[in-house]
C-alpha cells in the first residue's frame, strides 16, 4: 500500500514548485493512470515515489516504510518498486538477456541458472525471446521498451512505475508496448502509469488521477473522469485531448507536419484504417479548395475532433472573415465531389466573427 501526504517538490535551480500538495492512497493491486497537461508534475510525482527525486516536504509510505525519511535504505525500497522509463534506458553494453539477468544476479543473489531461466521466461512473456542475444542498439524503440519492462519484472517488484512508456515511440510501436503493459496489469502488481494514451488509460486503469497545477485535481474511475468530469480544468483537458489542432499561417504551411500529427492522433485513438482514410481525404481536399479559391489565405486553424460517445469525426477549418468562403458549392470540382462522397454533413457559417467550415461523418 502507498500513502502520500502533503507532498511538495520545488526545484532548486529554477525555484519552480512542481508539486504543491499531493495526497493519495493507493491499495495493493490498483492500476492507476496519471493524466494531465505537460509540465504539471506527473513524472516528478512518480520519481518522488522511488526516490529519484527528493521531495521538499511531505511523506510517502510504502508498506509502512517512510521513503522520505533520509535514514531509509532506498536500495531496499527500490528493489520492490520497479520503474519503466520514457527513454527505455537499457544497459547498452549488455545483451538483451544480460539486461534481464544483471539485477537478479547482482541484487537478488540469484544463481546464474535461475536468473537465466527467469530471464528467458520474461523475454517470452514480452515476445522478445528471439532477440535474447541481441544488443539494445539493434532493437527498435518498441522492442527496447518491451525489454525494459522485462528487466523491471526481473526484480520481481510489488509496484511498477511507468513514466510515459510510449511517449518516445513511433505511433506504430505504441500498440505492442501497450499490449505488454496490459499483460503485466493482469498479474496483480500495483501500477502507476503516467500516460497520454487516453484510450489505453481508460480501459486498463482501476482509477485515474487527473493532475494539474501541482496537485491531484480530480481522482475517480475512468468512466467518471472521461465521461463526467466534475472539475473545470478536467473538462477542458478531456475535451482538448479529443481534438487535433494545427495552426496554418499561410499557403506555405508545413503540410508534412500537419498530416504526420494527424496520423499520430488517429493512431492514438485507435481509429480504423477506413476512418483514417476518410479524415485524410477530407483534410486534403478542403485545404486544396481553400487555397485554390484564395491563395492568399492567412491564419487558418485546422482541427479534427473525435467523439467516442457519439462515434463521430469532425474536420473543421476556421478563418477570420476576410475569407469569403471555404467551399463554394456553385463551382463544382473533383475535390468538392470527393468531400461530398466522404462526409455526412457540410456546414459553413459565420459565427463570432469567424468563418467556420465543419465536415462531419459517423464512424458507426
Amino acid at each position: 500500500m502507498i500513502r502520500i501526504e502533503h507532498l511538495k517538490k520545488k526545484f532548486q535551480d529554477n525555484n519552480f514548485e512542481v508539486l504543491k500538495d499531493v495526497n493519495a492512497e493507493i491499495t495493493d493491486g490498483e492500476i492507476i493512470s496519471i493524466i494531465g497537461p505537460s509540465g504539471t508534475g506527473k513524472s516528478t510525482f512518480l520519481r518522488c515515489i522511488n526516490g529519484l527525486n527528493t521531495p521538499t516536504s511531505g511523506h510517502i509510505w510504502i508498506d509502512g516504510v517512510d521513503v522520505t525519511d533520509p535514514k531509509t535504505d532506498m536500495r531496499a525500497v527500490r528493489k520492490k518498486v520497479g520503474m519503466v522509463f520514457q527513454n527505455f534506458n537499457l544497459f547498452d553494453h549488455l545483451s538483451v538477456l544480460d539486461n534481464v539477468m544483471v539485477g537478479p544476479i547482482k541484487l537478488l543473489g540469484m544463481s546464474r541458472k535461475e536468473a537465466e531461466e527467469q530471464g528467458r521466461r520474461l523475454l517470452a512473456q514480452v515476445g522478445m525471446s528471439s532477440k535474447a542475444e541481441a544488443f539494445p542498439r539493434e532493437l527498435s524503440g518498441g522492442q527496447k521498451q518491451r525489454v525494459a519492462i522485462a528487466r523491471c519484472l526481473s526484480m520481481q517488484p510489488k509496484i511498477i512505475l511507468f513514466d510515459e512508456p510510449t511517449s518516445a515511440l513511433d505511433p506504430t510501436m505504441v500498440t505492442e508496448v501497450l499490449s505488454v503493459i496490459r499483460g503485466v496489469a493482469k498479474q496483480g502488481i500495483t501500477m502507476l502509469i503516467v500516460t497520454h494514451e487516453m484510450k489505453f488509460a481508460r480501459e486498463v486503469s482501476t482509477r485515474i488521477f487527473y493532475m494539474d497545477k501541482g496537485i491531484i485535481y480530480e481522482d475517480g474511475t475512468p468512466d467518471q473522469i472521461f465521461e463526467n468530469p466534475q472539475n473545470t480544468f478536467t473538462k477542458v483537458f478531456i475535451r482538448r485531448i479529443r481534438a487535433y489542432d494545427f495552426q496554418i499561417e499561410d499557403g506555405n504551411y508545413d503540410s508534412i507536419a500537419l498530416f504526420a500529427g494527424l496520423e499520430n492522433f488517429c493512431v492514438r485513438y485507435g481509429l480504423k484504417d477506413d476512418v483514417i482514410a476518410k479524415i485524410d481525404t477530407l483534410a486534403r481536399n478542403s485545404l486544396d479548395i481553400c487555397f485554390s479559391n484564395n491563395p492568399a489565405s492567412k491564419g487558418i486553424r485546422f482541427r479534427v475532433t473525435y467523439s467516442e460517445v457519439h462515434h463521430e469525426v469532425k474536420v473543421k477549418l476556421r478563418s477570420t472573415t476576410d475569407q469569403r468562403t471555404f467551399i463554394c458549392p456553385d463551382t463544382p470540382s473533383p475535390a468538392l465531389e470527393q468531400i461530398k462522397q466522404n462526409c455526412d454533413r457540410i456546414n459553413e457559417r459565420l459565427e463570432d466573427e469567424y468563418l467556420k467550415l465543419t465536415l462531419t461523418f459517423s464512424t458507426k
Partner: protein
Amino acid sequence: MKTILKLILAFLPLLFMGSCAKESAEREVISSARDLTGKSVVVLSGSVQDIYVSNNLSDCNILRVDTEVDALTMIQGDKACGTITSDIVWAMVRDGFDDLVSLDEKINPMPIGMCFKKSDTQLRERFNAFLNKYIEENDIDSLIEEWKNPDCVREMPDPDDVQNPEGSYSFAVCCISPPFTFIRNGEVSGVEAEILAKFAMSENMRWTFMDVVFSGLINCVQSGKADIGASIMCITPERQQSVDFSDPWIEESSVLVINKKFAPAELLSEEEATESGMLESIEDSLEKSLVREKRYLLLLKGLEISVLISLLAALFGTILGAILCFCSMHRNKLVSGGANLFIAFMRCMPQVVLLMIMFYIVFGSLNIDGKWVAVIAFSLCFGAYTSVIFRTSVESIDKGQTEAALSMGFGKVRAFLTIILPQTIQRALPVYKGEFIGLVKATSVVGYIAVSDLTKAGDIIRSRTYEAFFPLILVTVLYFLIIWVLTIALKYVETKTQPKRKKFFK
C-alpha cells in the same frame, strides 16, 4: 636486421638530396668572423660561443642547437654558413667532417673551470687544492690527447673501489663533450670525468654522474642537485653571478668553422677523399653507431628508460585522471573548481616547461633521480589530459542508465562500476590510445633533466660518431617499435571490452 637495412637504404636518397649544394656563379668567401654579417651562424645554446656571437656578431642570424654535432651537420647541409665552436672540440671531430674547414683566427680565448654552488666555498677550496696538485703531477695536454684517441684504453676509476665511503658526490656533466665528458662503453668518461672521480676518491667519497644538457648544468649546481658541474665550461662574469668557479685549469679558444665552399683559397688542400663503396660505408656507419664502444647498450638503456617512464606515467596518470575526472564532476563547487583549474593549468603548460619546473624548482633541493621526476611530471600531464577524455566519455553515457540502475536497487557506486564504467572504457579507449602515443613521444624531452632516454642516447651517439643519419634512424625505428607494440596491447584491451565479443556473465 635485414629489414632495418632495407629501411635505411630507402632513406638514403633523401639524405643525398639534402646534401646536394647549389653552385653559385660567383664564389662567396668567408675569411673572418666579420664576413658572417647577415648570414646564419649556429652555436651551442648557452655556451661561451653563444654569448660571444650575441655580443659581437649581433647582425647575424643566430641559430642555437644543443650539440656540436648538430651545429656541424647544419653547416654541411647548408642550413647555416658557419659555427663558432671550441677549438678543442673541433680538433676532436674535424676528421669526421671532410667538407668543413676552420679558419686560423683564434676567437675569444676563455679560461675553463668547474662550477660550484655559491655557498659551497669549502668544497671549492678543497677541490682547488686537489686540482692544482693534480695539474702539477700530471701533464694535462697528454691526458687530453690520450682521451681523444678513439682506441683509448684509459680506465675510469670505479666508485665501488672506495672502501667505507663517507658519502657520495653528485657531478653534473654534459655527456656530449668528448674528450672531456662523454659516454664510453656505457659509462661517463673523459678528462674532466676522471679529474672529478679522482677528487672524490681523494676525499674518500663515492660519486655519481648526472648527464644533463649543457644549458642545464648551472641550474643543476645552483639548485643543489649536483655538487660540482663540469663540461669544458668557460668562466664568464655572467656565470660567476650564478655559481662559483674553480681555478681555471685549461684555456679554450673558439674557431670559426665553415663549409669548404666558402673557404679562402689558401685553406683548401688539393687532396680528395677516396670514395669508398656505398655498402661498405653503410656497414661502417652502422658499426660506428651500434657496435663500437658498445653503443647499442646506450640505445637499449635509453629504450628501457623511455618505456619505463611511459608506462609508469600512463599508469599513475590514468589513476590520477580517474580521480580528477571524479573531482571535476563533483557536486561541491570547491572540489570541481579546484580540479578544473588544475586540469586547465596542466593542459596549458608545455611539457618541457613543466618537467623543468618540477626538476629545478619543485624538487630542486631534493636528491631525487630525474627519471622519477619525469614520471611525476608526465603523470600529472597525462592525468589532466585523460581526465577530460574520461569525463566526456562518462557524460556521453545517458544519465538514464544510471537512473535505471538506481531504480533497480543498485547503490551509486555499484551502478557506476557495473553499468557506467564498462561503457566508459569502451568509448574512451580510441582517444586514450592516441593520447598514450602522444605521451610516449612526449617523453623524448626528458633529456632536459639529466635522464638518458632513447632520444638522449641517440644524441650521445651522434656526439661521438659525428653522424646524424644512423642514430636518428635507429631512434625512429625504436620509437616506432615501442609505440607499435604498446598500441597492439591497447587494441587487445579494446576488443576485449567490445560488447559483441563478450558475454557479461561467463
